[in-house]
């Protein structure tokens, strides 16, 4: 609790706390919840679910109702038209899932029952876990997550807790710990025994949301956090089902099996601290595998679909443009806009240019293009699998010298090599020699990955200058700006905690990692290494054949060429 207090009282947090406070106060102004009693809500994923009176008082609040206007999967609906579900039903779904999980834990665990007070806190955290999302969900996180004020707050969380919560988790934490929210809750919501938890409830809820384990006396109640933010948490259980359902992808995991195999296992340590950890009986490992596989498929086919990526990149231009023109002033301002009102903000541009050094960025036109699905097209695509090395004449000689140098080191190293080490070294040499087409993608595209927005602008300008040269060589007129060129090199998929000890062995004592059973991390990594793609997109103002030629030269730097690009790039003369 001391560390949470340090974060809340830090200057970085205090600097932005007022804005969050004003937002929450404005949202809850004039809202006095009525007691509607228990309600049943029908949901395509979880069926008919009962919500208690206090839960409905939260759900009916304008702060929660706001989530109806935030698309769960951002702009994926431009590619999967039915994927229009919102954070509202997802949050209800997570609360449903967590209730089921709590019931199952009580049934499955040896000598452990979740206290009523803890269960209520877990359900509350489930309802509020996404309260800090802004327009288009994770997309807006990638925007305000780069702003310096936000990065300073996030660093404070890291310094105190050694945790890296996601941006929306930090905003959710901040919202639930505002005075306005706490006053609303403790004055009006019929939460059971709220008087006894006034000082601890929202720091605990905040901890669950950001992934910090809760310590109570000599117990670490990590299971509570794991139910909300863990390797097989209620959040995943809901969004995997929900997102695949609305997108039309048939992704299944054995939910029932998972529910029958989860439990809480108490782990004692030498200094009398006991950890109550959420684990899965080893018989449930197949369900974990299925869950991971489904998540990878979701990323591959929905979140990282090339059209979804480009529409999100356009929104980045739009939102950073708004920020530059002071139409959005702080990262907390992002909370004020949901999907239906953010695109209207561009009308206030009034001819101003947010980035004059890079050419005109017309925000209203950009918003219209996004709204009307007038999206740029791919002119270049790169992955490890579609590259062929362009070898220098002396390449083979250099490879042999490399191998020979390693063998020399084996001989000359001061520490003796075991026969096993030598065998491994020979295996790696064989693998290296067999890789005729070996070209390290990292050495080609390292400078195009993980760019901040300002770095991206500079890189686009470099591409623009080369495009203009190519146009002039072909005596064509230039009618485009750097904002007609989009460099999209997405992050890699996050698999979850394959190395956490959450599998309970047959003896009901020993804990193992998921990887020890099924090498989850490794096959998922291999799968992903074949699926990752980096793209260059251009608007219809640019000739895509010229764009392809220039992009290939700039990205591959003469060291590689693409294997059969016409298989996936349409309309380009190659």
């Amino acid at each position, binding site marked *: 609790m001391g560390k949470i207090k340090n974060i809340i009282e830090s200057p970085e947090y205090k600097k932005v706390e007022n804005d969050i406070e004003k937002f929450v106060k404005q949202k809850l102004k004039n809202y006095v919840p009525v007691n509607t009693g228990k309600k049943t809500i029908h949901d395509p994923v979880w069926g008919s679910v009962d919500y208690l009176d206090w839960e409905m008082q939260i759900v009916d609040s304008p702060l929660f109702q706001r989530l109806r206007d935030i698309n769960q999967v951002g702009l994926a609906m431009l590619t999967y038209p039915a994927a229009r579900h919102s954070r509202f039903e997802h949050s209800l779904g997570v609360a449903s899932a967590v209730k089921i999980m709590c019931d199952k834990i009580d049934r499955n665990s040896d000598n452990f029952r979740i206290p009523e007070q803890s269960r209520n806190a877990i359900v509350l955290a489930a309802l509020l876990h996404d309260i800090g999302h802004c327009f288009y969900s994770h997309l807006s996180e990638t925007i305000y997550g*780069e702003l310096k004020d936000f990065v300073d707050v996030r660093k404070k969380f*890291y310094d105190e807790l050694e945790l890296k919560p996601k941006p929306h988790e930090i905003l959710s934490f901040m919202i639930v710990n505002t005075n306005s929210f706490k006053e609303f809750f403790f004055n009006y919501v019929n939460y059971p025994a709220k008087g006894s938890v006034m000082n601890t409830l929202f720091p605990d809820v905040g901890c669950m949301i950001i992934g910090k384990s809760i310590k109570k006396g000599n117990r670490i109640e990590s299971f509570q956090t794991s139910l909300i933010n863990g390797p097989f948490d209620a959040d995943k259980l809901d969004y995997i089902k929900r997102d695949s359902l609305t997108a039309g992808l048939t992704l299944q995991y054995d939910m029932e099996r998972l529910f029958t195999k989860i439990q809480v296992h108490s782990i004692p*340590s030498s200094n009398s601290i006991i950890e109550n950890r959420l684990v899965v009986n080893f018989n449930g490992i197949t369900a974990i595998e299925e869950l991971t596989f489904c998540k990878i498929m979701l990323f591959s086919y929905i979140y990282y679909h090339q059209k979804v990526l480009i529409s999100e990149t356009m929104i980045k231009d739009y939102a950073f443009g708004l920020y530059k023109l002071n139409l959005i002033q702080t990262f907390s301002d992002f909370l004020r806009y949901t999907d239906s009102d953010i695109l209207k903000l561009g009308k206030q541009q009034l001819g101003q240019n947010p980035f004059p050094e890079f050419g005109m960025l017309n925000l209203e036109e950009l918003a219209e293009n996004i709204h009307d699905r007038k999206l740029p097209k791919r002119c270049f695509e790169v992955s490890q699998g579609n590259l062929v090395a362009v070898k220098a004449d002396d390449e083979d000689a250099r490879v042999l010298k490399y191998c020979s140098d390693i063998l020399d080191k084996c001989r000359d190293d001061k520490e003796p090599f075991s026969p096993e*080490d030598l065998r491994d070294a020979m295996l790696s040499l064989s*693998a290296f020699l067999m890789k005729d087409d070996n070209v390290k993608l990292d050495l080609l595209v390292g400078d195009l990955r993980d760019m*901040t927005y300002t770095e991206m602008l500079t890189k686009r300008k470099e591409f623009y200058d080369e495009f203009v040269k190519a146009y002039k060589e072909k005596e064509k007129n230039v009618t485009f700006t750097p904002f007609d060129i989009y460099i999209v090199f997405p992050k890699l998929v*996050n698999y979850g905690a394959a190395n956490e000890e959450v599998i309970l062995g047959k003896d009901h004592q020993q804990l193992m990692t998921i990887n020890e059973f099924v090498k989850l*991390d490794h096959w998922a990594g291999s799968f992903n*290494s074949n699926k990752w793609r980096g793209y260059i997109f251009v608007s219809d103002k640019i000739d895509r054949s010229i764009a392809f030629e220039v992009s290939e030269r700039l990205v591959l730097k003469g060291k590689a060429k693409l294997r059969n690009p016409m298989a996936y790039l349409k309309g380009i003369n190659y």
Partner: protein
Amino acid sequence: MELVCARPSISSYDFMRYLCASLVKRSKVIIDLDSIIPHIYEFKQKNEQFKFMFEDIEFRTSIDHVVSNDISEGINALQTFGIVGKLNPKYEKLVIYLTEDEADDILGKCTADISKVMLELAAFF
């Protein structure tokens, strides 16, 4: 309004890249996969002054175990981008495919201080 974009001084991916390059400089191209996270965590605990280098790396510690999704994902990313491979079928070893020249290029892109620290960390392995 001035747009100032910020991020951790070293991303988790770059951290692992620099580490792989440093391991190559120390002639260590085959590493036990299971030893990577504990070694890095131990180094971090013993060298508080270098905490800034771990800003983008989260460690989750329980009573008897330390894990880091960022390091695991960094390794997977290195595999996606061709810098490392994992030996089948047990995935016990990590193989680093960088040549000395490529390792020098990578380390040349970070400051001398960071390069020095990375080489110290590589010595832990």
